[in-house]
């Protein structure tokens, strides 16, 4: 039975990764900022200049209570925690409630059944923070529709969470016109009043500048690997298979391991992997590169883009993609766990979630992410994702005092791994929501029901870590994968910036995703894609190029 409408757009795809991430028991929701969406900005077009950005950004001050990771970070990869820290050793970053008992309404997406209001978990959180949160959760799958309506009205909640994949159409404009500038409270040394917020990496704050002002409270994301290429390690090992290291071999290998008559297909839709193998630029606004003559080239105009689609098309043509994936129907994770498809792309949060779920259902189950390979002797390219991909914004009508109190909520939720606050936020109350057996946490039914990973963590979290003490193996595999791939990481142009494109040009890219799906399924040809790109140039693509070129020239936003 279907769990939700299985439309496969990028937006939904990322939402599903958020869903999986949101359910991470480790307490650090690992959301992909990958393809964070369509630019921020605000009332006026453009992006904040470097100088402006420097003035706006909060001072970084490392947390005093954070625990040293079991697997340290390397070259910017996320650190890993494999150990469950006993209650007695936990640090304390918010010794006593810092709120004044104020009442706030908050809206976040939620995938699944929302807990009833006034439940033990929310009450415990409220008491520890010193506020009263009134949550208005909305179904995560249709959050964008709700968001548009809520922001268009006049009754906007005090705290509103907006995931990067919902930044389509006119939402960026709404952010600038509806939400408060947090600069006066957080810019420079002001942030030191909120030690946990001061410990959030600067890259995450940088991606929270909308319309030239610091408006977002960030939820930091992993620099690479927002979407992972998973494979069934148990089945591969049992058969002695190895994932090939060449695109053509990969297709041949897929042919070999597909056996339709026994309901086994090699993979799901691998378009996302193809983009990395061929080094395709990410989504807007980071979809430009400098050509040899210095002019900007768009993602859609690159050969890599066409090559990646052509490769994916061959994969489809070879009939090694699960037919339900071709029809974009049903749940790909379910097919993967059932062994009907052996490789698939999914958000990084799915890893832990699926592993936990299968631990009881299928003890032999083991999934891992395979190493990317390049095409034609080149290395793969993993363009670095922005420092944050989900933000919470504060209503601009809140008084100064109320904004400070709201920031106390964020300061609490942003406590790092290894603190009492983080433990409460991620696991709830010991005895009520979880019990510790043999030095490992086990959720009670009440914990499963009430300690949803949405709501509070979406307000703000500490820097991205992989902390999954209940399955240390996943932590090792994951951090290892990241370390091996950091050498292929590359910063795109306009990295870390929210760019507001001119309103009349914001919709000219809309048709490409559907066209990609048409091309890989063989309904349209690469030539059709080329024609669409020429049309795109005529319909404003060239204008858009000039606009971005102007940003580069004027503001030196080229980054590194």
């Amino acid at each position, binding site marked *: *039975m*279907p769990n*939700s*409408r*299985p*439309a*496969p*757009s990028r937006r939904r795809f990322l939402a599903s990764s958020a869903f999986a991430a949101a359910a991470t028991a480790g307490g650090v929701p690992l959301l992909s900022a990958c393809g964070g969406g369509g630019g921020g900005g605000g009332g006026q077009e453009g992006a904040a200049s470097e100088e402006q950005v420097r003035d706006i950004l909060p001072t970084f001050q490392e947390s005093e209570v954070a625990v040293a990771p079991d697997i340290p970070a390397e070259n910017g990869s996320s650190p890993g925690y494999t150990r469950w820290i006993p209650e007695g050793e936990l640090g304390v970053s918010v010794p006593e409630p810092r709120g004044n008992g104020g009442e706030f309404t908050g809206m976040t997406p939620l995938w699944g059944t929302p807990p009833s209001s006034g439940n033990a978990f929310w009450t415990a959180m409220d008491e520890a923070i010193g506020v009263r949160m009134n949550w208005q959760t909305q179904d995560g799958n249709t959050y*964008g*529709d709700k968001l*548009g309506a809520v*922001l*268009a*009205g*006049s009754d906007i909640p005090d705290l509103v969470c907006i995931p990067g994949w919902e930044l*389509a*159409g*006119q*939402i960026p*404009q*709404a952010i600038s*016109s*509806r939400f408060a500038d947090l600069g006066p409270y957080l810019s420079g040394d002001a942030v030191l009043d909120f030690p946990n917020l001061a410990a959030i990496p600067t890259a995450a704050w940088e991606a929270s500048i909308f319309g030239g002002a610091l408006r977002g409270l960030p939820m930091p994301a992993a620099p690479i690997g927002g979407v992972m290429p998973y494979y069934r390690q148990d089945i591969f090992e049992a058969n002695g298979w190895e994932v090939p290291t060449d695109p053509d071999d990969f297709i041949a290998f897929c042919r070999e391991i597909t056996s*339709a*008559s026994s*309901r086994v*297909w090699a993979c799901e839709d691998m378009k996302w992997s193809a983009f990395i193998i061929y080094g395709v630029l990410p989504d807007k606004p980071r979809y430009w590169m400098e050509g040899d003559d210095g002019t900007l080239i768009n993602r859609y105009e690159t050969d890599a883009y066409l090559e990646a689609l052509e490769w994916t098309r061959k994969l489809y043509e070879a*009939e090694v993609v*699960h*037919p*339900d994936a*071709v*029809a*974009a*129907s*049903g749940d790909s994770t379910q097919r993967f766990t059932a062994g*009907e498809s052996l490789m698939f792309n999914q958000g990084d949060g799915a890893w832990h979630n699926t592993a936990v779920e299968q631990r009881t259902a299928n003890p032999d189950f083991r999934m891992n992410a395979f190493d990317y390979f390049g095409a034609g002797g080149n290395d793969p390219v993993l363009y670095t994702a922005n420092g944050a991909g989900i933000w919470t914004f504060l209503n601009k009508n809140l008084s100064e005092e109320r904004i400070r109190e709201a920031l106390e909520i964020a300061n609490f939720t942003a406590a790092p791994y290894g603190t009492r606050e983080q433990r409460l936020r991620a696991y709830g109350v010991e005895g009520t929501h979880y019990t510790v057996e043999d030095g490992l946490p086990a959720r009670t039914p009440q914990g499963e029901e009430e300690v949803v990973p949405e709501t509070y963590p979406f307000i703000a979290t500490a820097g991205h870590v992989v902390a999954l003490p209940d399955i240390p193996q996943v932590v090792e595999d994951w951090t290892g994968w990241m370390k091996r791939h950091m050498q292929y990481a590359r910063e795109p142009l306009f990295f870390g910036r929210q760019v507001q494109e001119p*309103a*009349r040009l*914001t*919709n000219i890219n*809309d*048709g490409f995703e*559907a066209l990609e*799906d*048409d091309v890989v*399924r063989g*309904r*349209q040809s690469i030539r059709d894609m080329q024609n669409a790109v020429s049309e795109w140039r005529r319909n404003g693509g060239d204008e858009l190029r000039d606009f971005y070129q102007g940003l580069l020239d004027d503001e030196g936003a080229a980054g590194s």
Partner: protein
Amino acid sequence: MSQSTVPRPPVPRESGGQANKPAPAARKVPRRRGRKDPRLAGGIGLRHRLRRDWVLVAMTLPAVVLLLVFAYIPIAGNVIAFQFYSPYAGDGFFDSMANSAWIGMENFQRMLDDSDFWNAVQNTLMFSSLQLILFFPIPIALALLINSILHSKIRAWTQAVLYLPHFFSWVLVITVFQQMFGGAGLVAQLARDWGLTDSFDLMTDPGFFKWLVTAQVIWKDAGWGIIVFLAALSMVNSELYESAAVDGAGRWRRMWHVTLPALRPVIALLLVLQVGNMLTVGSEQFLIQRTAVGPGASEVLDSYVWNRGIANGDFSYAAAIGIVKGVFSLALVLAANRVAHAMGEQGVYSRR
């Protein structure tokens, strides 16, 4: 409206049309109403009628208010079709509207050159024509069939089974189809086992899509559609059947000369409504299957409006498409109604 769903007494003669002969003559009477209306001239005035019927009027008030609030007042929002509207330009709808730029007919001109729009129009008309031809007759046939089942238990069972798919959501219906006719579905797997073909897949074939959606609609809603016809059939005076039988009419002759004439007004009414709804074939069914067959085969007007407006935030253009769609739908209803009148039926509304 309510009047037209009640079948007129069937005419026991060969041609049902003859009974309507006086009607055209009556229509030539000047249509002006008011004081000159003979029924009012010598009768009671408005005040008296209000005093007499106020209970009835009060009872319709809630419905009128609902219609006003949810149907008529929102029509005014269509002005954004002539703007470059942004809902975030101000606080609330009216403020935003005041702050949005006026662009005149630009959105309508854009439509003329928009090949995606015309593709959606073409698909919509194709799907609804197919449904008109293939879907529409099926509930009538089913109703006649059920009506012929005399055993009440079997009859109730058949009805329940036929009604059931109507309550399934589109997600479910399409999943069932995918599990049956998809590339990994039952039929495909059987075909593989029997060595017939390795790549049977009806769900991702853009050329087949029009037949597929029609089949889905039939499976989901044909059963539900019989309710109206069954109601009409239950109104047929059983004496007519008896006397026809006494006169020696067989099963088929009774159906042709008694049952079908009784259904005629209902069929005409539904046909008018169906034609008026030609441009509305639903959107969820097509949104779900969009990637499977591509927008070229699956985009219809409603899904196009959804994609432009809700998904991509191009509200003004979506509103403009909505207006054009509304105008053409109205024209279609009027045209279909005219045809119904010409055939001597009442249609959606009747003329005096």
